[in-house]
């Protein structure tokens, strides 16, 4: 019974294949859109792909989460229909692409400062100077006045700080070093920003789990991980002082506020870093993630399907963001992106 069923399935599969080859009309009906890139938004993208199947069963997606660098390379070589990246393309990278690439922001994420101080129960507060000093290796002890002045009620130990960073190239590191560059000129000139940098101090852990594992295991250490990862794993994380001087507990609402804080200075191509935004309630260490598509879509049918999907993702798709711990885009931003999407030229 089982075997005959499998045999039947197989024959059906072969027949289907033959049909698909012989009649292009059927092949077009279930269109496969290929994408590749960032790992950070992969959970929400796969949620979108499966939900979008219900909206439009004719479109299927194949997304390879190979990293932002890979995504940029693949879309520049036109081997995929869309790319995805946690870092926007540099001017040089845009010039190297064979056509005009546009950036479509999809969701925002935040990076939190996680730490392990034995016996500490209160949430720590970090000033920008303290964060930069710790990761530059200039602030070496937890009882340093820069940390103590923001935490007057906390009994800080007189112990050496062990900073922990990501050893693998990642969008998380890009956001974090972007933040450090924006608040510290010493960081900007000595280290800079990028998916991997030359860290002046500390240990490296591979992946969010590597950093979190090292911080959990090492007393008096401090590291940075994605907000979603910290939430899911109940890590202790600190408040960070923003541009207005308020200490903000990281969260989805505070991240969306960060996007709002940048709306006024938002460029038309959406290539903007979210760090250190205006806004009293905005969390300062956050960033956008983008899908990259060509302004001129060669394949009219496929191009139209991609645009339709993106319109759905930034409007209806946003409601899935919160349960997966991504910050949804603010309404005003969605309108701007919709306008941009309608400018994509499909067909020849």
């Amino acid at each position, binding site marked *: 019974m089982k075997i005959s069923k499998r045999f039947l399935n197989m024959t059906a599969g072969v027949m289907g294949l033959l049909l698909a080859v012989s009649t292009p009309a059927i092949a077009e009906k279930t269109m496969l859109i290929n994408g590749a890139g960032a790992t950070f938004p992969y959970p929400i993208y796969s949620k979108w792909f499966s939900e979008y199947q219900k909206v439009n069963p004719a479109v299927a997606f194949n997304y390879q989460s190979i990293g932002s660098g890979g995504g940029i390379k693949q879309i520049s070589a036109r081997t995929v229909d869309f790319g995805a990246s946690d870092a926007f393309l540099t001017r040089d990278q845009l010039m190297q692409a064979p056509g005009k690439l546009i950036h479509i922001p999809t969701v925002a994420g935040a990076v939190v400062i996680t730490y392990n101080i034995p016996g500490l129960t209160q949430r720590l507060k970090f000033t920008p100077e303290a964060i930069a000093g710790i990761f530059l290796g200039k602030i070496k002890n937890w009882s340093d006045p820069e940390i103590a002045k923001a935490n007057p009620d906390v009994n800080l130990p007189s112990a050496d700080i062990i900073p922990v960073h990501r050893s693998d*190239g990642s969008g998380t590191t890009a956001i974090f070093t972007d933040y450090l560059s924006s608040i510290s000129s010493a960081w900007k000139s000595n280290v800079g920003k990028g998916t*991997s940098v030359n860290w002046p101090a500390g*240990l490296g852990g591979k992946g969010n789990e590597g950093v979190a594992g090292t911080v959990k295991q090492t007393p008096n250490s401090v590291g940075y991980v994605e907000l979603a990862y910290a939430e899911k794993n109940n890590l202790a994380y600190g408040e960070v002082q923003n541009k207005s001087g308020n200490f903000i507990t990281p969260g989805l609402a505070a991240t969306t506020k960060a996007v709002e804080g940048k709306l006024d200075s938002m460029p038309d191509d959406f290539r903007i870093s979210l760090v250190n935004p205006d806004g009293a309630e905005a969390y300062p260490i956050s960033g956008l993630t983008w899908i990259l598509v060509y302004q001129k879509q060669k394949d009219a049918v496929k191009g139209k399907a991609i645009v339709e999907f993106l319109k759905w993702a930034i409007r209806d798709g946003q409601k899935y963001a919160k349960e997966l711990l991504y910050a949804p885009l603010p309404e005003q931003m969605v309108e701007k992106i919709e306008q941009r999407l309608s400018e994509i030229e499909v067909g020849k």
Partner: protein
Amino acid sequence: MESNQVLLTAKSTRKQGFSDPFFKAMVAVFAWSLVFLAGLLVVILVTSSWSSIKEFGWSFLWTSEWDPVAERYGILPIIYGTLVSSILALVIAVPISFGIAIFLAELGPSWLRSPLGMLIELLAAVPSVIYGLWGIFVLVPVLRTVVEPFLGKYFGFLPLFQGPPYGVGMLAAGIILAIMIIPTISSISREVFLTVPISMKEGAFGLGATRWEMVRLAILPPSRSGLLGAVLLGLGRALGETMAVTMVIGNRHDISLSLFAPSYTMASLIANEFSEATSNLYTSALMETGLILLIITLILNIVARTLVWSVSRTARGGR
């Protein structure tokens, strides 16, 4: 009946005569395809690392800065970390593995030998990410709280055991690698010991040797080249190991004499940074790191082969 048989044999011989060249050609293609693939690998590695070779020249090998932002790359600390972690692994693993092998081949009770041997070989089948996780959650805390403070207290006068006990670092990497290569070295050495003819062991006992003397005089000398081969295979695995090492070594581009200090290896660097390397020079520098790793492995293999060769020659000459 008999003539029939002869005919049959002749027929099959003729058939073989026809199939032999075909078979020979086929296996030759298999053999050469591997050489071709290896050659292709070298060609690809060299061409894709060319822009880095052109940009940095020899300074790639002896500078210590790895700065993807400023696009300056040098891998001296990583070469150091790769070699030292592998050598440390050998220092720990070789005596233990030889001990295991001798026990399993000669000294252990026979009912224990095969289950124990299987258990050790099973260790080789554990995925390296599992070793890495075990390293982070079990080994590293023990090193940080017990082993490293102890070593620092009593052997702190040696530069090897100085500095703060992080737990993660060169020592942790060396120990993890040692555990990973023990199955390889011990199971091959056991096979080597088992090839020693019984007559030689009996001869040693007959001359009044104790067990230890028998092992020392009858088993170890003829096994030397085989044992070196076992160590080499272990070294090969240690040099190329990526996942477990990167999880416990601390991933820092520094050269430090202390085994407590964090370090980095070439395989880990490539695994860590390749997926997010965006610029051409960056990718190229990582490719060149791969090329250098290949060259180092090659050099070590040649050195070791020469050693095996000279050892086996002197052994034969001594006989």
